[in-house]
């Protein structure tokens, strides 16, 4: 049998190594980036669940997280509409209405500048507006007077996602 030329064998081996190395290169970026955030486990899980998570570009990881903030804000808004439709008591109604306004503002007014900031490289605005979104989510939860709100999980998720997005942007400053 004809002997395989040495250079060809070497090249094939090198290609295999490269292919094996690539995913771990971007997985490292997620790990490295999430380490710098207050909720690293949450951060890693969320980013790995998105196909764009294999990026080698940190701002893209920030954008993915801002998208999660946005999606959650919209779905929470829907949940609130639902709950308001079930005739809650006045205290709950007031808190839910206030949250509805807050989540609307997150989607309309905090997500767009955060995305623009991460895309265009002036990162301080993503830090500012994602912090504001996290703050809004916390305040929404607090509006239910200390007991767990009917949208507790959504509020916690929003706070976590926005805090992580802010931290990612901050690491780019």
């Amino acid at each position: 049998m004809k002997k395989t030329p040495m250079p060809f064998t070497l090249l094939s081996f090198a290609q295999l190594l490269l292919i094996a190395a690539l995913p771990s290169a971007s997985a490292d970026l997620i790990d490295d980036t999430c380490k710098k955030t207050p909720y690293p486990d949450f951060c890693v899980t969320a980013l790995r669940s998105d196909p764009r998570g294999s990026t080698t570009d940190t701002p893209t990881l920030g954008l993915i997280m801002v998208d999660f903030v946005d999606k959650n804000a919209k779905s929470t808004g829907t949940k609130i509409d639902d709950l308001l439709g079930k005739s809650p008591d006045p205290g709950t109604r007031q808190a839910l209405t206030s949250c509805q306004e807050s989540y609307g503002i997150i989607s309309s007014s905090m997500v767009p500048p955060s995305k623009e900031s991460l895309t265009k490289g002036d990162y301080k605005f993503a830090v500012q507006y994602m912090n504001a979104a996290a703050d809004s989510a916390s305040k929404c939860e607090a509006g239910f007077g200390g007991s767990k709100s009917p949208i507790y999980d959504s509020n916690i998720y929003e706070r976590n996602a926005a805090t992580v997005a802010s931290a990612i942007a901050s690491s780019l400053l």
Partner: protein
Amino acid sequence: MAEPYPGRQEDPEYAPLAGGAEPGERHRPAKAIFLAGLAVLLVVGVTIGFATHESPDSCTELNSSRLAPFREGGEGLRRPVPSEAVVELAPRGVKEGVSAKSNRIFAGAGVRGFPWNNSMLSWQRTAFHFQPEKNWMNDPNGPMYYKGWYHFFYQYNPGAAVWGNIVWGHAVSEDLIHWLHLPLAMVADQWYDINGVWSGSATVLPNGRVVMLYTGSSNESMQLQNLAYPANLSDPFLLDWVKHPGNPVLAPPPCVDKQDFRDPTTAWYTSGGKWRFAIGSKINNTGVSFVYETDDFENYQLLPGLLHAVPGTGMWECVDFFPVSDDGLDTSVNGPGVKHVMKMSLDEDRNDYYAIGTYDEEANTWVPDKPEIDVGIGIRYDYGLFYASKTFYDQNKRRRILWGWITESDSEAADVLKGWASLQGIPRTVVLDTKTGSNLLQWPVEEVESLRLSSKEFDRVVVKPGTVAPLHVGTATQMDIVAEFELDKQAIEATPEADAEYVCSTGGGASRRGALGPFGLLVLADDDLSEQTPVYFYVVKGSNGTLQTSICTDQSRSSVATDVNKQVYGSFIPVLEGEKLSLRILVDHSIVETFAQGGRSCITARVYPTKAIYGAARVFLFNNATEANVKASIKIWQMNSAFIRPYNPQ
């Protein structure tokens, strides 16, 4: 035997080949050719290297060992600041993922947002500070004086009260106070600025020509520098602007990220007959300033080296570079004995830093007088909210004027509800403090005094420890306050030396009493002091009896709302022999600007009371020191509105 090299003279004695091949080794022609080829390449490469070394640009030089410390620059290289410097660094939270602005998140976490109503929100709009009718504003751009009018441009979002979709707003004034809003000067309509018409500066040329250099965020989100100029130089309002057909004039140099290259300065004219401007960037974590040179503002050369760099400071936004003396100086002034100010906006902590030093035009370097308070690790223009600031030389009155962006410190949600965000500070003159030689003096432009209406004077009032005295001045939401204070000398002498320094941000505000402070004024306070914003001096007797003075603005009780910033801002301030403690405070609804010791230290705060508004706002004199009387002389003027409005041709 075959000849190894055609054309080689036959020589019975072989010279050894490179690599030490022995005579007699044969059948290696390929290897010999390969090695000869390498040698040729090496010679060619070295020749090219020497040839191009004639004019290395900054990027090439940055690979040299001379700048190695900058390349490795990181957090560990930030030098500690000595206590006697006029500094009070903002909380370094941003690196850890928490902005200074978000401190209130953790302070108020778990507390409901305040139920703001329209009355409270509309009160917040100012009467005599520059702001557009609505929506978001940030950096001042291209300030200049032209044909009898002061021009002011600014970063503006035409569609929302949050940052984004940035274009250039425009306004004119004859006196820096009464502004007329004009149509937008530049919008995002070219591929090179379609993603944002970002900040820039004007250069007024001696022949009357005006050039504007600005940063565009391109269709690929790259930061490019562009040239624009007035469409019609005979229009004093400079309504229309032309973008140079050859734009962009500059792309980022290869050694920096394409998104770390923005905010070109006003140009200065060199002794070599060229124009130069500076622009900030970062390399790893070292903040840097490049300089470009041009004849025509269309073609540029990147000068070798860096004007300046400071490790560990990160991205330098809004660089400013200008000569100072005890008078205003044109940007092109230079010469032995002329000092230059290097200034930048630190992206990492949203503060503006400056330092005073010496410019070497030939070497293209600027060196700080005091490296321990170099730019970014030393003095700030303002110890409150003040960012992206920019100066210009006013040829009309021969002074240097400083503009600064004053952001909001309430919640972004409240900004959306009220429909606007941000102010500009009152323009300030800037001169060198010749008494200390190591800082600038900033002072509101004298034209603001044209707004003064009636005044009330309180002469040499003795205020005992623990006293809060109302000052009956009528409405207390638009005021110009000038005050002087003297601590009782005997009390000073009797006070023992303190073992700790006082730092405004951690000092506990106006309610924490010391022997010789705090004392000063309470502004935007209501009758029962449930809301109050103290502006105060705090004096500490240090080792060997020397007095250390701080000036602070305390927001901790400025509002019962929890979703506003509650920090105490301020700094240490040098007080020289024989000087009284002096304050000037401009109060204009939701902004309080403080100037201490003739402008040696400045503090701008945004304040959002819910009760101490409209007719319920009061001003008080207070002395919360435990050991010393304070003698105060105060004059307070009511301030008129500046009636800032859109230009109406009728």
